[in-house]
């Protein structure tokens, strides 16, 4: 059994190649000058530079938090380059996309040519600090939908960006949010006008390529009254010995009667079998349900990264608003994950659901940490949380740290959790029927994660299912 499990878990990382493209990387280190330089390179207006500088000055005095159930290598913030631009050829920005870049994204299964794209998905492809291309922009614009990289949005729709940037995750929120606010580079900006249902899935694909850099993307999604959008995020990185830092911010604003679905398939490089290298994924994601009857759902499949430390959260201010969080976190070898969500109920009759499935294998540590907070104003608030852990192997750990703060007598908050290993009986049942152990394990794991996978858009679900198999390969014990 131990061996089969190991075989099942030990598949290799498929996206570990590097792209050989001329990349403009600024010198390592972080100072006010670097912040100014990034701002200048992006041709930003004065107000945004002020925002960055304020964040930077705040960050300088902060200490990196250490309360997570993870052991992180020390990060030398002066040993990272904060800006890498693979599209800057010989100092001149060219209109044409480098064929190397096209090839890279093709290889990752993200065609940048619209005719080749999967029907119904628009992509914003980001490599290192710069958005390479956003597809279907024109088509979406016909309906008034804005979908572009945030740097472009700052130039073209400064008022919109200025109104919402930092309104959900202020730069004072936490250490990594302050860092991101100071040095953020590209990410996507989405605006859905009143009453518009976005006709296609929007997606952003993040790729780290350059060595010695970090990625600090920033995504802002605003869904106006009665709008709807489904947004997908995918990410990969090359195999490197060094730990690369990824500190992103995602902000979502949901207005009255609007609905946003945000799905992530996170597949950053997890480090090798001995725990060397891998991406440090330290992300702040938060949605603000401002209007009545608004809905927001986070779905995440976390298979990559050496360290994952993130809590996609929802602030339910609008009356009758609903939020959901579905998560599968898989850790193998020496990976560590401390992830979960925060549901903050402020409006009346707000409802939230949390389904979290942790799978740990090898010598990894997988923690669920979640907060459900019901403010005194949240009459009739309802929360249901369920977090299960599956242990594959005797040297891994699964932990649960739920926090519930209830300040309203009409609220109903429920939490339940279980921890177990793959049942011998289920395995035996499958084997009896001629299914070999590896397939049986894969079947059981997929069945276990099904509640979450089912919430993903179709193409993503297939991908996620494959990933579950891959990242667990060789781990069962």
């Amino acid at each position, binding site marked *: 059994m131990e061996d089969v499990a190991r075989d099942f878990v030990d598949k290799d990382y498929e996206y570990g190649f590097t792209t050989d493209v001329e990349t403009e990387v600024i010198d390592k280190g972080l100072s006010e000058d670097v912040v100014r330089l990034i701002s200048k390179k992006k041709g930003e207006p004065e107000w945004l530079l002020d925002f960055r500088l304020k964040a930077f000055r705040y960050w300088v005095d902060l200490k990196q938090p250490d*309360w997570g*159930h993870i052991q992180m290598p020390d990060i030398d913030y002066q040993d990272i380059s904060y800006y890498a631009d693979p599209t800057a050829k010989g100092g001149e920005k060219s209109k044409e996309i480098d064929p190397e870049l096209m090839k890279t994204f093709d290889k990752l299964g993200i065609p940048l040519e619209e005719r080749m794209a999967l029907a119904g998905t628009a992509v914003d492809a980001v490599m290192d600090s710069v958005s390479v291309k956003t597809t279907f922009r024109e088509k979406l614009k016909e309906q008034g939908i804005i979908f572009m990289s945030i740097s472009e949005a700052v130039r073209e729709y400064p008022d919109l960006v200025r109104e919402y940037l930092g309104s959900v995750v202020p730069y004072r929120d936490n250490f990594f949010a302050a860092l991101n606010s100071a040095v953020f580079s590209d990410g996507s900006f989405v605006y859905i006008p009143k009453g518009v249902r976005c006709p296609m899935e929007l997606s952003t694909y993040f790729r780290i390529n350059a060595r010695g850099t970090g990625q600090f993307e920033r995504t802002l999604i605003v869904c106006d009254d009665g709008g709807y959008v489904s947004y997908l995020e995918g990410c990969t990185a090359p195999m490197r010995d060094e730990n690369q830092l990824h500190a992103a911010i995602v902000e979502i604003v949901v207005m009255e009667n609007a609905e946003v679905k945000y799905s992530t398939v996170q597949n950053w490089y997890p480090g090798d079998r001995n725990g060397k290298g891998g991406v440090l994924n330290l992300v702040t994601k938060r949605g603000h349900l401002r209007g009545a009857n608004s809905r927001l759902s986070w779905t995440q499949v976390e298979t990559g990264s050496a360290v994952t430390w993130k809590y996609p959260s929802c602030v339910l201010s609008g009356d009758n608003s609903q939020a959901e969080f579905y998560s599968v976190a898989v850790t193998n070898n020496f990976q560590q994950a401390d992830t979960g969500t925060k549901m903050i109920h402020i409006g009346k009759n707000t409802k939230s659901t949390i389904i979290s499935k942790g799978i740990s294998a090898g010598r990894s540590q997988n923690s669920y940490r979640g907060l459900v907070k*019901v403010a*005194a104003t949240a009459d009739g608030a309802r929360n249901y949380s369920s977090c299960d*852990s599956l*242990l*594959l*192997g*005797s*040297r*891994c*750990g*699964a*932990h*649960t*740290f*739920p*926090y*519930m*703060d*209830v*300040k*309203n*007598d*009409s*609220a*109903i*908050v*429920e*939490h*339940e*959790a*279980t*921890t*177990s*290993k793959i049942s011998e009986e289920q395995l035996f049942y499958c084997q009896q029927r001629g299914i070999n152990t590896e397939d049986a394990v894969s079947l059981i794991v997929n069945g276990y994660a099904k509640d979450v996978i089912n919430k993903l858009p179709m193409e993503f679900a297939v991908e996620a299912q494959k990933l579950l198999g891959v990242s667990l390969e060789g781990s069962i*014990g």
Partner: protein
Amino acid sequence: MNGTLQYTDFFNEVRDVLYSRSCDVMNRQRAEALETFMRVGFPTRKNERYKYTDVLQAFAPDYGIALSPLDGNLPQYCYRIGDAPIDVAQYYNCIADREDAVVCLNTMLCVDTVLVYIPRNKCPDHPIQIGNILKGDRDTMVNRRLLIVLEEGARADIIITDHAVNDCSFLTNQVIEAFVGDNSCLNLYEIEETHLLCTRYSNVYIHEGRDARVRHTSLSLFNGNTRNSCTVRLAGEGAEVSLNGCVIADKMQRVDNNTRIEHLVPHCTSNELYKYVLDDNAVGAFAGLVYVKEGAQKTSSAMTNANLCATRSAHMYTQPMLEIYADDVKCSHGSTVGQLGDEALFYMRQRGISLEEARLLMKAAFITEVIDMIPLEPLRDRLHFQVDKRLRGELSKCEGCKLCK
């Protein structure tokens, strides 16, 4: 450090009295405790185990500190630590958390310790009751200590009750250490019935040997501000522990229960059930952690925390945690915060039961689950009666014992 000065000053002032009134075993620990206390200071809310309690605020007022040794007759199997029939140095302050400032303060200032020692294969004829009676004409701080040693195959039922006679403010800082040997069985009940001006800090440490069984029940029926912590180490295979508690709090009461169960070896079982009924402006907190060490296979653990908030201003914080480093385990936890079911209330009103009475019935039924688990019948009956009275608001002071009347 913050707020520690008044206690270190006091310690230095009364050092001689303290040393002369106490015994060697206890005196030997004081210097180290003082040193740690000065170094770490009172825990703040940044300390995860004290997240829901403001320790500094509780210890800041200027209390008179009681320094009198035990008096009164001790029943069979109970001793003052100075008269112990065994070498207590191997037990005293050995499992208590020496880095915890509140425990250190107790070690520094406690004058006398009650030792309950049950020799091998013995069992007292009756349950042992230890009544703590707070009496005084000024605000007083009490440091008390209990050491329980059960040798192999021994058995004991110990009931600890807290009463307050006067309307002064009392601050109790108690530390209990229990060593439960192989095959032995301990039932420990703590019943708190004091008043709104009482503050209680209790730290209980239990160490279990092979096939030992412990049932710890903590009942906070009436109090001011309470913080109970219970740490259990399952160090022998086949050990079992059951931690139960119920809390009834209203007005401005605060109750914080913090538990930690450590499964250190395979084949151990733990069960935990805590129930809270919160009314008025009461604040309740529950934080439970089940820790399963690497290699502690075949662990079975279940934790449940259910809470009833009867008013809008009652707050509940709950945090049921699991930390697991072994794969062949069955661990579950569940936690709920809710209120009385409308349907059940309606059902009773249909049958002519007034709303008030129906609510009362439901609250009592909710709490009953914890009390029904108590194997000691007379205690169970008594508690049913007390809980009913308490829920009716008739219990503002403890009754029933001669001293409090």
